[in-house]
């Protein structure tokens, strides 16, 4: 059925570990090469950490699952060096229509904020997303990706994990300090360790189909509530790469999944939806029941759960893979520093607390969308329907219509890793939040702030102070600190002055030529922002003190947690 995409088949290769007399030992073993496992291996490699990745299959996602990848995910992919490829292949969209029964109630344009390198989100089939990650893993000698390696058993003690792995050449055993379990929603590792993911199954079924349209169709997201072609249910039409369109049809709880996914049943439904005379090929169809659930704790001994294995959401609002990648982003730099002896082991516990907070937020958002789409009782349905009717003429009601919200990153506002904030910044960015991108000039070249953040701590300082001597002295004390890079920002293009500062502290200067950094960060002269290796804002001050910055880095590395 699938014509636009052929799954790559990756070769199984026998590893030296399969011939050793005693089990080989690795610092990090990742189970699963889905979006989570692949991203983990790349993020760790970027920070100098080796890993072995085991996957039971030899290809990427079969059939499309995730399609919507949001800005924060793309920023992380940009840090990994795959963002551009994904954006180029994906569909950037911003318009949509909402229908209720037989009429269109409104249309919208997301009008994303200007001056960002990456779009608010793209639609890209999950198999492409994974394929590009697999390709990127090839650039790192630190990554040992093993296809057709299925983990059959795990034993975990406080300090050591032992894994039994099945391959086409038989079984072998390896040990590791850490296991990162990214083996998906039905994680067997979780079950083997007697752990659970708890939550809610929605009493509903959805047909997810990918079709190729033969004719032009607008690049818009169309959502129908209770359409005439599918009474009392909902439907979604959304464009992906290669002229493939995603169709979601709500089927109700009583639908028989085996019957519903057959082409002769799917076809008439889609014909009714697209209208007469629209020709299409059916690429893929499957029937899903959705759940929102998570584990109470993402860490068990030295086994750390990531992605769907740790937290699962219904797809409305696209927070599954997006949430998964943000968990990877959160965990990798922490684990790297623990393994390098630069941070206490307790730092890992903040992966659990920060991402539990995020998982709750993602589950809350997905549940709210699901409840709007599938009202739980008669009065909820009345409110839903009346909201949609009012939305036709009244703008306010459109804000209540919820067919899935844009996936936004969670802010770790209460994180113990944040410094204490004493001054007021006139911006909606807070400590614990992801950065906001901005255009800049470097060596007379246009570039983007987001390209200069991450992988190490980053200190962004506005150097346009009246008397720069003190600032330069402070900067010099930080210039050669391990795991810290400086980002010196000026609002003016005074080359003579800039090159003077540049030579005094031997550091490149970036020019905020459109004043967007100043605006978005309230980065007035002397102001300083400290970003974590995952780009999260962790400290900020109105003037620079190397003592404050050093102590903020210690806090962000978890040394305060020890006390």
């Amino acid at each position, binding site marked *: 059925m699938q014509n636009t995409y052929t799954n790559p088949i990756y070769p199984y290769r026998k590893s030296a570990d399969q011939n050793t007399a005693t089990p080989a030992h690795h610092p990090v073993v990742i189970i699963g090469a889905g979006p989570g496992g692949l991203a983990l291996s790349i993020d760790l490699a970027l920070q100098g950490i080796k890993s072995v990745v085991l996957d039971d299959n030899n290809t990427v996602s079969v059939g499309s699952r995730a399609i919507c990848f949001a800005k924060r995910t793309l920023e992380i992919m940009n840090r990994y060096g795959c963002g551009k490829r994904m954006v180029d292949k994906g569909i950037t969209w911003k318009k949509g229509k909402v229908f209720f029964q037989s009429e269109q109630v409104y249309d919208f344009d997301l009008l994303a904020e200007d001056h960002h390198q990456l779009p608010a989100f793209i639609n890209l089939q999950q198999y492409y997303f994974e394929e590009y990650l697999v390709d990127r893993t090839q650039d790192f000698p630190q990554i040992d990706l093993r296809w057709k390696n299925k983990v059959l058993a795990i034993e975990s003690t406080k300090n050591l994990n032992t894994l039994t792995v099945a391959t086409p050449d038989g079984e072998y055993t390896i040990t590791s300090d850490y296991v990162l379990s990214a083996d998906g929603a039905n994680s067997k590792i979780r079950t083997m360790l007697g752990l659970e993911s708890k939550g809610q199954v929605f009493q509903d079924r959805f047909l997810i189909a990918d079709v190729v349209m033969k004719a032009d169709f607008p690049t818009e997201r169309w959502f129908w509530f209770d359409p005439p072609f599918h009474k009392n249910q909902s439907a979604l039409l959304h464009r992906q790469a290669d002229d493939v369109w995603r169709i979601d049809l709500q089927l109700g709880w009583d639908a028989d999944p085996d019957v519903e996914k057959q082409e002769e049943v799917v076809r008439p439904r889609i014909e009714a939806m697209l209208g007469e005379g629209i020709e299409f090929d059916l690429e893929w169809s499957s029937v899903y029941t959705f759940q929102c659930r998570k584990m109470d704790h993402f860490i068990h001994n030295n086994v750390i759960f990531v992605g769907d294995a740790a937290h699962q959401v219904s797809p409305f609002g696209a927070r599954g893979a997006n949430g998964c990648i943000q968990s990877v982003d959160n965990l990798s730099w922490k684990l790297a520093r623990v393994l390098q002896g630069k941070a206490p082991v307790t730092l890992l516990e903040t992966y659990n607390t920060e991402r539990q907070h995020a998982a709750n937020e993602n589950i809350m958002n997905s549940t709210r969308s699901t409840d709007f789409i599938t009202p739980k009782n008669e*009065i909820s349905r*009345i*409110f839903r*329907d*009346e*909201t949609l*009717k*009012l939305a036709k003429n*009244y703008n*306010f*009601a459109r804000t*209540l219509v919820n067919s899935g919200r844009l996936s936004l990153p969670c802010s770790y506002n209460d994180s113990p890793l944040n410094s204490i904030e004493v001054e007021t910044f006139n911006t909606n960015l807070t400590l614990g939040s992801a950065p906001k991108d901005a255009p800049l000039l470097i060596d007379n070249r246009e570039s983007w702030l987001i390209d200069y953040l991450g992988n190490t701590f980053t200190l962004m300082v506005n150097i346009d102070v009246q008397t720069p001597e003190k600032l330069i002295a402070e900067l010099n004390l930080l210039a050669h600190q391990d795991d810290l890079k400086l980002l010196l920002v000026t609002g003016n293009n005074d080359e003579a002055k800039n090159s003077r500062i540049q030579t005094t502290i031997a550091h490149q200067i970036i020019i905020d030529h459109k004043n967007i950094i100043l605006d978005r960060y309230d980065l007035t002269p002397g102001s300083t922002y400290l970003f974590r290796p995952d780009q999260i804002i962790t400290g900020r001050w109105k003037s620079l003190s190397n003592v404050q910055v050093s102590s903020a880095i210690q806090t962000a590395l978890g040394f305060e947690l020890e006390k």
Partner: protein
Amino acid sequence: MKLNVEANFTDPDAFYASLTDLHRNLDRQQSESANARLILLLANHIGDLTILEEALTIAGEVK
């Protein structure tokens, strides 16, 4: 408490009459729909979540 529970109508009797007039010729189902629209309109006018939550709490308490 931010929700105003003191008398605030410019003309209570007229409001009450209009409210019952709205429902006079409606059947049960139509009335439920009209009530829903009315709640949505008024809730948006108030806007502030704290005030709305207070109203929701009181509405949930009264038996």
